[in-house]
Every structure is written in structure tokens, then in C-alpha cells.
């Protein structure tokens, strides 16, 4: 994972004194301790999910499992109870997929169009619009929960998956516009002018000049939106009903359901299942993930 954001420094020279070597070993040690701190919860989740409940009760939190069993994973996937229903995470996992995929595609597409306009087709008021949009990115969503619940009801999509897609698209376009705008603004406007002289129109220029250049920012935006929407809980818990909850809500229900004995191994397996898609994205495309994080939060 090498990123332009972190250019590597040149290698140190040879023949270093002993004290410096000791210092470097100390440095590596401290860095490894930090790494252990960040990895510990994942390790505990994984080992706990592979133990039987008896072993959890008798053994130590940090011990490796004696007998590895995947029962907890099977239960978490298709048998754990979220309240009165006991179908595991599976249906809710698919709900999240059904919500995230269209919402990511729509919000990315709209963001690309908006960003293209704000960056390259400035008209009077375009900057004001962009500022309004940017401020909209920072509102605490609590302030729109109540009216949104009513409007979804009026639109007849309250508690449905299309309703959740709608909400995620609406509150996603601020960020997606920001991403594309910041990317397109660095493309020289002479390019657009020259294309216009050649008779190319708005969509022709977007399609033949901008889109072919856009792959990196599309990847960044898709990853950002996917992570946001997959990990969302507030909208999911506010605007869903039994059967349409996303995976985060179902996970919380499994962990906090009060019926029966606490099955920590099932809880942990469920947590890992819910985390897998975004973790996978992070491992596969980490540098784009980081670029989205820093771009989305640092520069307005």
C-alpha cells in the first residue's frame, strides 16, 4: 500500500553507531506494541468466534481456541435471534447489499454530474450552491430525522428498502459532489473551451474527456460511499421496520437481545460478518480508502 500522500523517505546510510541501532530496535518495539493494541480487538473477536460457549466461560479472553468450531459462525449467519425472529444475519446482510449497491451507484453518478458542473461550467450562483451543499455535509443528521420520517411516510416508502436508498442518496450527494468537484477543478478549463470550439456539447465533453480521466476519483467515491452506507446505523434504525433492517441494526439486535443466555461467540462471529465487506474493501483498496478519508475531511 504505497500512496502519493506518504512518499517514502530515502534510505539511511550504513555504518551506524550501536546506540542508534538500539534506539531503532526500541522504536520498532514501540510500533509493534501499538500494532498489537489495534489488532487485539480483532484477534479477540476472531478467537472468541471460534470457541464453544463452554470454552469461553472456562478459558481466558486472550487464549487461542482449543477446539476450533465454526458453529457460532453458522448460527450467526442463519440462526441467531434478532428479537423474535431467528434467521441470523443473512437476510439483513442482503438488505444491506440491496441498499448499498443502488445508493452508491446513484449518489456517485449524481456527484459526478454536479462536480463537473461546479468545477467546469460555473454559472452565477454555482459557488453559492456548492457552499450550501458543503454545509449540508456537516449537519448532524438528528436534525433531519423527524421530518424525513414524515416525508418517507407521505411518499409511501417508509420502512422500505427504496426509502433507505433514497435517504442515503440525498445525504450522500454533498460528499460525492465535493469529491468530484475537487478532482475536476484541477483539469484545465482550456480543455473544455477547446472542445466547445470544436462543437462538443455538455454531455459530449463529460463523456469523452472527463469520464475517461475519472477512474481514480470514481474508485475513491465508490469506496467512501460504500463504507458510509454499509456502516450506517442511524438511518437504518430510524427508517426501517422488521424485515428491512440493514446488517448493522440486525447485529445490534442480536448482541442486545435479552432472551436466552448470552452467546458471545455468536455475537463476535456476527460482528465479523457485518464488518467483512468494508474490511475487504479496505484491504484490497486501502490507498483509495485513505485518500477518500483525507480528501473528504481535510479539504473543503
Amino acid at each position, binding site marked *: 500500500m504505497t500512496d502519493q500522500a506518504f512518499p517514502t523517505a530515502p534510505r539511511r546510510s550504513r555504518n551506524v553507531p550501536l546506540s542508534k541501532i538500539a534506539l531503532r530496535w526500541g522504536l520498532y518495539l514501540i510500533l509493534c506494541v501499538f*500494532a498489537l493494541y489495534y489488532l487485539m480487538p480483532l484477534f479477540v473477536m476472531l478467537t472468541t468466534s471460534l470457541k464453544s460457549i463452554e470454552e469461553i466461560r472456562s478459558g481466558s479472553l486472550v487464549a487461542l481456541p482449543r477446539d476450533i468450531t465454526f458453529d457460532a459462525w453458522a448460527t450467526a449467519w442463519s440462526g441467531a435471534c434478532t428479537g423474535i425472529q431467528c434467521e441470523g444475519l443473512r437476510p439483513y446482510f442482503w438488505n444491506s447489499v440491496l441498499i448499498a449497491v443502488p445508493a452508491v451507484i446513484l449518489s456517485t453518478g449524481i456527484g459526478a454530474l454536479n462536480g463537473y458542473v*461546479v468545477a467546469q461550467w460555473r454559472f452565477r450562483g454555482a*459557488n453559492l450552491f456548492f457552499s450550501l451543499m458543503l*454545509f449540508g455535509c*456537516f449537519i448532524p443528521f*438528528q436534525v433531519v430525522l*423527524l421530518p424525513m420520517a414524515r416525508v418517507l411516510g407521505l411518499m409511501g416508502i417508509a420502512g422500505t428498502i427504496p426509502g433507505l436508498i433514497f435517504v442515503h442518496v440525498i445525504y450522500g*450527494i454533498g460528499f460525492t459532489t465535493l469529491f468530484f468537484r475537487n478532482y475536476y477543478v484541477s483539469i484545465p478549463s482550456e480543455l473544455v473551451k477547446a472542445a466547445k470550439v470544436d462543437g462538443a456539447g455538455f454531455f459530449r465533453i463529460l463523456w469523452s474527456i472527463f469520464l475517461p480521466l475519472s477512474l481514480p476519483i470514481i474508485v475513491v467515491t465508490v469506496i467512501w460511499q460504500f463504507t458510509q452506507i454499509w456502516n450506517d446505523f442511524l438511518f437504518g434504525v430510524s427508517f426501517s421496520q422488521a424485515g428491512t433492517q440493514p446488517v448493522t441494526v440486525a447485529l445490534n439486535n442480536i448482541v442486545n437481545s435479552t432472551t436466552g443466555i448470552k452467546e458471545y461467540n455468536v455475537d463476535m462471529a456476527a460482528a465479523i460478518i457485518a464488518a467483512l465487506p468494508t474490511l475487504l474493501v479496505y484491504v484490497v483498496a486501502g490507498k483509495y480508502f485513505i485518500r477518500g*478519508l483525507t480528501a473528504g*475531511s481535510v479539504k473543503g
Partner: protein
Amino acid sequence: MSEWLERHIPKIVMAPSFVAIMIFVYGFIGWTAWVSLTRSRLLPKYEVEGFFQYGRLFAAPRWDTAMNNLFIFGTLFILISMVLGLLIAILLDQKIRTEGVLRTVYLYPMALSMIVTGTAWKWILNPGLGIESVVQGWGFENFEFDWLVNPDYAIYTVVIAGVWQASGFVMALFLAGLRSVDQEIIKAAQVDGIPTRRIYSAIIIPSMAPIFLSAFIVLSHLAIKSFDLVIALTGGGPGYATDLPATYMYAMAFSRGDIGQAASSAMIMMLVVFTIVVPYLYSELRAKND
């Protein structure tokens, strides 16, 4: 006709987003503000009654707890994440050969849902089988660590989990900042024999002021919006010892059926966010347009 269309097409393309933002962001904020000034309970009423709801809000002990918690959590979460993030970034900046791997490890929590983070730490911190029993197993029989279920300390468990999730991200911000400092100045200082510690404290860190500001903005924004983490880790409990404004608002809106309180608490949250974010965004936009 087609010429008119060609000239106005950028506006037409933007129009739906513009309308959506005006309705679903600003219109909704207006609606919430309006309702916060009424006596709405289970159903919204639209007769403005003044600041009655805000009076109720500030008189409510539960809201008092929520604001106190936000202050404790926010301060510690921001401070510890920044210190830890900066420390790790500086250590990582020493030409570490395995930097890529370490960076990946430090940052992965940011990819997780707060619900997952909360679930994991709830298990790790639970007094019966978690860290407490591990340390007791090492021979420290009298070791006690019941913060998760102790009303006086439960909010600090939210800090622990929050810092774990966000500090790697702060590290990434700072690391990018460290790398963007002019290498020539650093080299010149090294040639002059200035010790590394002084180079950091006198040259590098002061030049990263904008990064500190953005890290602060992002973290405070995260802190105020924290909802999922508390729900998954403590459920706001024990009692309402770990309530934050976000959980208070949710409880009023969806389980207590007190729309007036929900609206007024949401407005206060927005006020807090905007007093922090607006000056920042304003200066950013100004700087860009100049």
C-alpha cells in the same frame, strides 16, 4: 431552442440536486426548528409557543447528563486521539521499513462500523469474562475493572473504544502533514546540528497547524454525532449514565414519543456542530475563492 438548452444545461443538471438540498437539508432544518418552538408531543403541532421546549430540555437531568457526557467524551476523545495519532505518526516517520504494513494495521478500525467496534469492546471490557478476568488470571486477584457497568466510569469506556477507532485516522492525517513539510528546511536544520526533538517541536509541528485544525474539526464532528458507538457499547446505560445528545434525541423521537424534546435537542446539537464547523468552512471557502 437547442441553443437555449445547450446554454442552460448545466443549471438544469444541477437543479434536482439543488431542490433536494434545499428541501431535505435546509427545509428540514427549518421544520425541526419550527417544531422545537411548539408544544408537540406524540404528534407535531404547529402553533409556535416560544422556547418552552428548550426550557424543559435544560431542566431535564437526563439532558444535563448527556451534555456533561458529551463534554467529557469529546474532550478526552479529541485530546487522546490527537496525542496518540501524532505520536505514532512521528514514530512512523523515522524511515520505518515496514511502514506500509503498520499503517494498514493502525488504520483498519476506521473501516469498521461503530456498531462492530462497540460490540467488540463490550465483550473485551465486560467485567465477568473480559480484561478483568484476564488480569485476575495473571495473579492479580484483586484487580477490578468494571467501568462498563459502573455509572461513574462507563463514559470512559466509550472514550476507549472511540480512540481505538479514530486515532489511526488522525495518524494518517498527521503523517501526510509531516511528509508535506519542506524537506530542505529540515535538512538545513540537521546540518546545523539541531537535535531531532527540537526540529520537531520548533519547525515541523508548528508548520502543521492547519492539520491540527482539520483533525480537531473532524474529531469534534465525530464526537457530536456519536450515536452508534454508545448504542452498541452501553446502550446509553447503566441507566442513562452514558447518554449523549444523539442518543437522547433518538430516545425522545422514537421511543418516548416526545417530538418537541427531540426537535429541540437536535437543534442544540446542530448549534454545537455549527459553532465549530461554520467558521472553519467559511475560512476554507474564502481562502479558495481568493
